């Protein structure tokens, strides 16, 4: 028999209607239609510029106490991890990187409020497109590779460049996978796409889950981030993973620091480290 799932503090679950949408080893993710401190609806005419788009809803990330830890240690760890994630989310939001925007934190109870990102994960999106492409083309069709390139490449380039922006700020994600990258409809519509091409609008990638994120200036840590993502591609999209990884890295190199001289040097170093990491795996020291 499995033990009962940890429950939210009752003051919160009594006040808000929350739906558990994901349960991990460290935290639970709840969805809420309501903002924690902005009532909806508000008296008419009160708020013209709401704090966010209310349609997508909000996310509450909860780190429940772990009964097997000493309570003092547990409280300290929960506070530390919750705050570290909240700080990084806020920092990235200020820097204009596409992450769920940070709303509030309660470090004592292990709670973080952020905006919900309404869209599929990169993993699901690629699966969907692959199925679509295979449906259109016969076995071993030459056009198939072209279609794949046209529809998937632009997105993976922007995924790479988004990760590069993150790394350029010396933040490493720590758990970069295709499930931790969500895609939402681009907020900028039309302006960038040239003549009305029949191509679908490329959604924008949003990186989520900074529970294991850290500040780091080491090329090694960034290379490991990329390596973890590469492994995720290999295991979830085995057939074409090589091309996918190539596109992501292409976007990464192009997007890193956007032409700043020092960035060129840094990104070379990261790519060199990535080769080394590929040979030996994610763990650095094999002593023991």
């Amino acid at each position, binding site marked *: 028999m499995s033990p009962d799932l940890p429950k939210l503090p009752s003051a*919160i679950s009594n006040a808000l209607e929350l739906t558990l949408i994901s349960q991990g080893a460290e935290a639970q993710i709840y969805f809420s239609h309501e903002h*924690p401190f902005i009532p909806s609806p508000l008296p008419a005419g*009160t708020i013209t*510029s709401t*704090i966010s788009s209310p349609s997508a809803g909000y996310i509450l990330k909860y780190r429940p106490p772990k009964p097997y830890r000493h309570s003092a240690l547990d409280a300290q760890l929960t506070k530390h991890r919750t705050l570290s994630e909240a700080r990084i989310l806020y920092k990235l939001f200020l820097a204009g990187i596409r992450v769920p925007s940070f*709303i*509030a934190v309660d470090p004592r109870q292990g709670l973080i409020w952020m905006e919900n990102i309404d869209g599929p994960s990169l993993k699901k999106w690629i699966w969907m497109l692959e199925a679509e492409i295979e449906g259109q083309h016969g076995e071993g069709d030459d056009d198939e590779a072209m279609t794949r390139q046209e529809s998937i490449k632009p997105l993976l380039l922007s995924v790479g460049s988004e990760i590069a922006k993150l790394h350029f700020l010396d933040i490493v994600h720590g758990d970069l996978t295709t499930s931790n990258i969500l895609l939402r409809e681009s907020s900028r519509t039309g302006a960038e796409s040239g003549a009305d091409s029949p191509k679908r609008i490329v959604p924008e990638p949003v990186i989520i889950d900074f529970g294991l994120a850290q500040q780091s200036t080491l090329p090694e840590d960034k290379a490991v981030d990329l390596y973890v993502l590469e492994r995720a591609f290999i295991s979830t999209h085995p057939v074409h993973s090589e091309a996918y990884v190539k596109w992501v890295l292409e976007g990464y190199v192009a997007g890193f620091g956007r032409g700043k001289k020092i960035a060129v040097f840094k990104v070379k170093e990261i790519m060199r480290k990535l080769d080394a990491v590929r040979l030996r795996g994610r763990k650095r020291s094999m002593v023991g």
Partner: protein
Amino acid sequence: MEPGLTLRLPQFPQSVVHVGLYTSVTNAATIRKELLSGNTRYSYAFVDPRSMLSVAHVLAAVYRALTDMEAGGLRTRTLSSEVVFALGGTMNIADTLRRFGIADDSDSLLVVKVDTDQTKRSNSVWAELEEIIQGTSIPVSDENIAQLTDIETVRKNYKLQPGISLVDRSEATKVVAGAIALRGYL
């Protein structure tokens, strides 16, 4: 019609929040004096709207104060002063009250009252405020607050880098609300 706004924060439905907005205020110095002398009739949060961006900005501070109160972590003596303190981006109480609170020369005021146990009916709140404040009550809306905002004061009070744009109010509110939530934790 009520002169101000009465609402409840979704996460704290048991508390009633009153927000009022006043312009052409002539007796700010007197209010401040009564406040400092500890007159209990004046247990409201008197905020200078020059440093306020939107209704959501105010609610972020109320939320922070209520969260801290629930955890037994109030840093100031009353919930009202805690709301003003929560607005600031620093842990310095005196400095924050000076920057965000009422000043002798304030000619507009944003007033917040949080009732955690609804002992006060909202019309008595408005009646009391009418007696306390010599000024004109205007509807509490983002539009009216925006008219009173001094963006440079906001930038200075929250120590925002020049790279951070405050033109889009909704984005700017997210910036300050984040600073309020993380105050003391950064």
